[in-house]
């Protein structure tokens, strides 16, 4: 089963645990409805829409309400460590959670103890914690954007806010930054770097790059990176190999953006609505990439 751990911005302190659905453009989970605008709900929406094409609906959500104080994230960390919640999960993605190295250690220890450790994907705050903890290589996939890649490449930075200028500057090549992240063991087994060109890389170098269709306004739209992480997670959960899933997901996200015909003011739900059509389009094509 596929599971997603993340947060939603709601002051209600309770956790939301259970099967995830998308109903009338809202995420339904544990008897509650959450709007799909950006962050973890956008990721969840993309997962549901991708797996719909495969006839798969068994998606487990672990959500905490957290507006940035960290209380909800820590409550969810405690739940995941204490309960048998993670057993039976084959693909697990961690998302917008308050970065906390101490809790990261506890979660990772629990996962590494499991007989059938899931495929582990991290993005956003939990990826920051994984890098800071020095245990990034225990993960199968990270999905950073350009700013986050610079952070992974800066072995000193404890958060993207403190990334050094000579690494952050835009004339650095993505492939150089990825190499630097691997040299300091601050990257997962695979990286899917989101940007005007998407790069799928591992320690050996570039595996694929995807730059079409190019929809420039997508960069400004909150949640388009989250949808990419959701699509790749969903494809991996179907058994697709990670590099192939990352390549297909990059294409699908772009095609969904193309179908939505967005402006920089478009909201991500319009793109999520196009995902099933984009999945069908891309999976019909030959999956060979340019490397």
């Amino acid at each position, binding site marked *: 089963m596929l599971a997603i751990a993340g*947060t939603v911005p709601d002051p209600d302190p309770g956790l939301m645990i259970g099967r995830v659905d998308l109903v009338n453009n809202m995420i339904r989970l544990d008897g509650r409805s959450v709007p799909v*605008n950006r962050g973890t709900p956008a990721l969840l929406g993309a997962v549901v829409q991708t797996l719909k094409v495969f006839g798969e609906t068994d998606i487990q959500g672990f959500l905490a309400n957290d507006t940035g104080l960290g209380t909800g994230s820590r409550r969810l960390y405690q739940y995941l460590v204490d309960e048998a919640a993670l057993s039976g999960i084959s693909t697990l993605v961690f998302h*917008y959670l308050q970065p906390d190295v101490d809790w990261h250690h506890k979660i990772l220890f629990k996962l590494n103890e499991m007989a059938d450790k899931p495929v582990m994907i991290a993005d956003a705050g939990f990826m920051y914690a994984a890098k800071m903890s020095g245990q990034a290589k225990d993960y199968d996939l990270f999905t950073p954007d350009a700013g986050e890649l610079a952070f992974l490449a800066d072995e000193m930075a404890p958060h993207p806010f*403190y990334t050094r200028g000579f690494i952050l500057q835009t004339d650095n090549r993505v492939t150089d930054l990825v190499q630097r992240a691997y040299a300091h063991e601050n990257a997962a087994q695979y990286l899917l770097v989101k940007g005007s060109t998407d790069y799928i890389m591992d320690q050996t170098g570039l595996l694929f790059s995807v730059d079409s269709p190019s929809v420039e306004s997508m960069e400004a739209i909150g949640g388009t990176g989250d949808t990419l992480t959701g699509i790749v997670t969903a494809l991996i959960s179907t058994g697709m190999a990670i590099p192939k899933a990352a390549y297909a997901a990059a294409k699908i996200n772009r095609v969904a953006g193309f179908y939505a015909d967005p402006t920089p003011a478009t909201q991500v739900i319009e793109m999520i609505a196009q995902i099933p059509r984009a999945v069908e389009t891309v999976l019909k094509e030959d999956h060979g990439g340019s490397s």
Partner: protein
Amino acid sequence: MFNLFKKKTLPSSVQDASYADFGFLVFENTSEVIQAERLLKSKGWNISVKGPPPEIQSGCDLVIQFPLIEQLNILRFLEKSLIEPLQVVPVAGPMLKPVDLFQVKDLGDFLMVRAANMKLTVEKQTTLIVNISGGGCPDVPYLACEMVGKPLFSCPRPLDIGHTLCGYALGLAFEEMQKRCSQ
């Protein structure tokens, strides 16, 4: 371009990665440290008083170690309490400075400013905030809910309502955008 294969030795203060997500608050004198410690502890923050690492050249002989991710929230609280630190530095690299590099992209009718991992986009003609993207801390979706669709010059400021370093980075992008849109 980069020296890829030479692993840097981290400062002694971060030999234990458990402290990699902490920062130091540096104060003018010990009495401010004691007062700040009492106030922060009374609010439940996970802080402790330490000796400063050698890289820190200013302030007194004690510093407060705090969860770095909560820097924005803690600084706002101390400012209200009239005890402002001289300096705030990450334990992982006391010489590190907050990002001061902005990437600006003209998207026709829209303008996008990026600071670190945060991007803010406004419609040029109306100065309405149309999108916020990037970031990884849980206050980013919250900030987006509070700001998107509102005018740049009258919406809530991320530095006032955000909590984390992502909120802080968005605050810097917001101020840079205000500067550019008022020219």
